[in-house]
């Protein structure tokens, strides 16, 4: 299942999210919104707005979207135990 996420380099919950997927040996792509170029930022914001999302981390697991650090939700969508707080 493909996992990708939009994050902020300043956000501790984004770091926890990356750590969650790393510790569960699940490959993922990420883009740090604040470090991205203007065109990429506009594209990311358009996607968040289309999904009524406004905060980071913003995680896509397959065709599902999770906004925020939600280890239980990540685990549910991945079909694994959360193993995180």
């Amino acid at each position: 299942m493909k996992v990708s996420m939009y994050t902020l380099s300043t956000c501790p919950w984004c770091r926890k999210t990356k750590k969650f997927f790393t510790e569960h040996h699940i490959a993922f792509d990420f883009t740090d919104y604040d470090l991205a170029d203007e065109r990429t930022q506009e594209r990311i914001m358009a996607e968040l707005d289309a999904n009524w999302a406004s905060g980071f981390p913003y995680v896509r697991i397959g065709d599902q979207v999770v906004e925020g650090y939600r280890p239980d939700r990540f685990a549910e969508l991945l079909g694994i135990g959360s193993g995180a707080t």
Partner: protein
Amino acid sequence: MNTESRKRALRMFFDKLVGPMGFKFTPDAELADFLLEQEVTLETRHGVPFCPCQPIRHDRSRDMKIVCPCIPFHRRHFDAMKRCWCGLFVHQDVTDPDSLPQVPAKELGLE
């Protein structure tokens, strides 16, 4: 002003602001310290201490709503979570901030 002294100044300033709103600093000292440090970085970069966990859109009217403490602009959402989005502030009765997940406003039926 160096980072540590600016963090102390922001802490004193925010403490006076959030108390009357029913919030306090998170009891998670490590998280609070990290978030304040990020806010000092953002203040150095952009001139104001934006929330470290929400996007700067380069749209003044929207960006002003994520200047810390942004509680007044997200009052119903943060009251429902008993924390702000980044977790720097929690309701005054909260003793276990780890028990309070980030939940988008739309999932709480607020948007």
